[in-house]
């Protein structure tokens, strides 16, 4: 035995390894838990049992924990019991959604166990976890297994087991987090609906991230950057969309490169995090793409850095601060809506994006309601859009199959004569709209619009939010998928390939025109590139391009 070791244990027998946490330390850990949860919020949101991106478990849990932190943010309190009680109180008041309520109950139990204690040691930590689990389970009559409750149960079992073997809070915490992670992975085995959707339970995953964030804080690991990972290039988020830029993010640098030797992702991220923020790494067919925001004086640093280790094929630098200013100064021209006279026919259209709204307006729509795949307008919103119009003849174009019912609801609730044309997509809606004659016969126009729905095929191009297999088409998360009239027909790595694969599914010799509406997540270069390819493939067809501005869908394509 070395001298050093015997000396240390001789000085503090039994006490050396004892870690205890006071109120301030617990506060720091929970803050870390919140930050880490927020960093991974989108990941939790994407764990949704529906194939469209509309989940919000992550957001609900973040808001719940944010309310908890707000209670203790400024407190100088060192008593761990009092801090825990305030956290529980804050979580209760701010509990959002199902997962938020359960989270607040877990904290309530946890705090009850700590009541009147100044510091938390390993034994108390384990007891508090058990109390948290018990309190959470009391809140439901028939607990469904494979949820956040199961994860709370499994991690407590591991905590008790760990405590019977050792008395080190840090070691126990690490085992608890690991057990939580493993439990999350098992949730699909317990809950069939998760297995069908090919996801793990979102609430459980959120709880895992909160605990992992606390552990990372305990171990001094960074919380702001997402875990290093590589994503398909098509899935990289364009930060330009977010109009708020942080200070020192004046320049956006995008670099395509081919590494000289296999990329060590973590080291790569680590070095770059000293240069800038919003780092993303994408993987293409035979190259990588780096996306980073840097202050002006460092705008060449990422290039130098990448040059040292890779062959740089393409560099793109943009002054985003300047762009922002220009965007603010040039307001988009207002969308001029038709003003129907009494007795005329007024059309209400649901539109998912600014560009599409403008096209609708130019074709004579009297009111536009914002909505689309993930943001269905309510009956009330639809009603309000036309109740005040001076005419009683109303036609609604829902332009999405999820909105048709709300439109019919609005039609029943109104005292006006309201017809719903069941358009399931933007191209269908536009086609129907072409039949509009404001002074025409109401019934005849409706008949014409209904038959116009069948004239065109609609293609939609989007990114898959998870792995799935539908109608024999296998889809990997992050791949580009093509839907033809609502059915999944193509799944490829790139936008270009998916567009072409989708068009191949249509009898193109019976069609004359292809109209593309591109979304707000795609650059003009990409659009031009794809349009070029389509023109080459279908030289006899007329091709039109419009900025649709819709979210989620890179392209909405009308084929007539």
């Amino acid at each position, binding site marked *: 035995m070395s001298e050093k070791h015997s000396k240390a244990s001789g000085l503090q027998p039994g006490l050396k390894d004892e870690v205890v946490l006071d109120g301030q330390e617990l506060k720091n850990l929970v803050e870390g838990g919140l930050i880490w949860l927020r960093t991974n919020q989108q990941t939790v949101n994407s764990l949704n049992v529906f194939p469209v991106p509309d989940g919000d478990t992550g957001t609900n849990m973040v808001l719940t924990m944010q309310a908890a932190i707000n209670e203790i943010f400024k407190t100088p309190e060192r008593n761990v019991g009092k801090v825990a009680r305030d956290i529980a109180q804050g979580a*209760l008041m701010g509990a959002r959604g199902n997962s938020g*309520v359960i989270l607040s109950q877990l904290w309530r139990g946890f705090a009850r166990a700590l009541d009147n204690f100044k510091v938390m040691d390993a034994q108390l930590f384990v007891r508090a976890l058990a109390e948290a689990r018990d309190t959470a389970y009391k809140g*439901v009559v028939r607990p469904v297994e494979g949820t956040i409750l199961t994860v709370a149960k499994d991690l407590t079992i591991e905590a008790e087991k760990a405590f019977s073997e050792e008395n080190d809070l840090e070691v126990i915490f690490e085992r608890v987090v690991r057990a939580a992670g493993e439990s999350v992975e098992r949730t699909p085995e317990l809950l069939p609906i998760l297995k069908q959707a090919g996801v793990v339970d979102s609430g459980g995953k959120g709880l895992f991230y909160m605990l992992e964030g606390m552990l990372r804080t305990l171990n001094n690991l960074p919380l702001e950057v997402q875990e290093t990972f590589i994503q398909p290039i098509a899935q990289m988020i364009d930060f330009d969309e977010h109009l708020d830029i942080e200070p020192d993010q004046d320049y956006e640098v995008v670099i395509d490169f081919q590494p000289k030797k296999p990329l060590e992702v973590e080291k790569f991220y680590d070095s770059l995090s000293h240069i800038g923020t919003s780092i993303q790494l994408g993987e293409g067919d035979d190259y990588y793409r780096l996306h980073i925001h840097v202050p002006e004086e460092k705008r060449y640093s990422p290039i130098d850095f990448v040059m040292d280790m890779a062959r740089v094929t393409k560099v793109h630098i943009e002054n985003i601060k300047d762009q922002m200013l220009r965007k603010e100064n040039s307001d988009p021209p207002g969308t001029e809506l038709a003003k129907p006279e009494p007795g005329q026919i007024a059309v209400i259209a649901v539109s998912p994006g600014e560009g599409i709204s403008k096209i609708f307006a130019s074709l004579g729509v009297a009111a536009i309601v914002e909505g689309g795949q993930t943001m269905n307008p309510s009956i009330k919103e639809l009603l309000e859009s036309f109740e005040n119009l001076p005419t009683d003849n109303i036609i609604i174009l829902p332009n999405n199959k999820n909105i048709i019912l709300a439109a019919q609801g609005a039609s*029943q609730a109104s005292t006006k004569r309201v017809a719903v044309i069941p358009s399931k997509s933007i191209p269908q809606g536009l086609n129907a709209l072409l039949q509009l004659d404001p002074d025409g016969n109401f019934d005849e126009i409706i008949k014409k619009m209904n038959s116009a729905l069948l004239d065109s095929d609609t293609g939609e191009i989007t990114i898959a939010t998870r792995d799935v297999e539908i109608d024999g088409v296998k889809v990997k998360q992050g791949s580009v998928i093509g839907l033809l009239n609502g059915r999944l027909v193509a799944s490829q790595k790139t936008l270009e390939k998916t567009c072409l694969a989708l068009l191949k599914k249509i009898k193109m010799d019976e069609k004359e025109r292809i109209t593309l509406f591109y979304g707000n997540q795609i650059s003009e270069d990409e659009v031009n590139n794809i349009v070029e390819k389509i023109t080459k493939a279908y030289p006899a067809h007329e091709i039109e391009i419009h900025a649709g501005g819709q979210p989620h869908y890179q392209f909405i394509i009308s084929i007539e």
Partner: protein
Amino acid sequence: MEQVENPLGNIYISYRAIASIAHKAALETYGVVGLTAKNLAEGLAQAIVKDPTLGVDVEYEEKSVVINLFIIVEYGTRIKSVANSVANNIRFKVEKAIDIPANNILVNVHVRGLRISDTD
């Protein structure tokens, strides 16, 4: 009685069937610790025969299904969030079971009491 068209004939789904689905979904919702009779008469009937639809009232209004729900909530949970969760859960389960779009399922939640398991 809800009627669904079918090429081989019609399918009728009774109020009680929907009520049973809603009852089960309610009890699986976090924060709901019980359902309770709507009124005294129903309470007395319940004392004699166990009813799998206790605390659930279903009616049709044109094309919509309206479900009234009478629940007991665990003390110490945020009641508003629990009420939202139970309504969403029921809409989701009923939609899945009988294929009425969730937009046409209305759930009115009546919180009839709280159960206090622990006082803090």
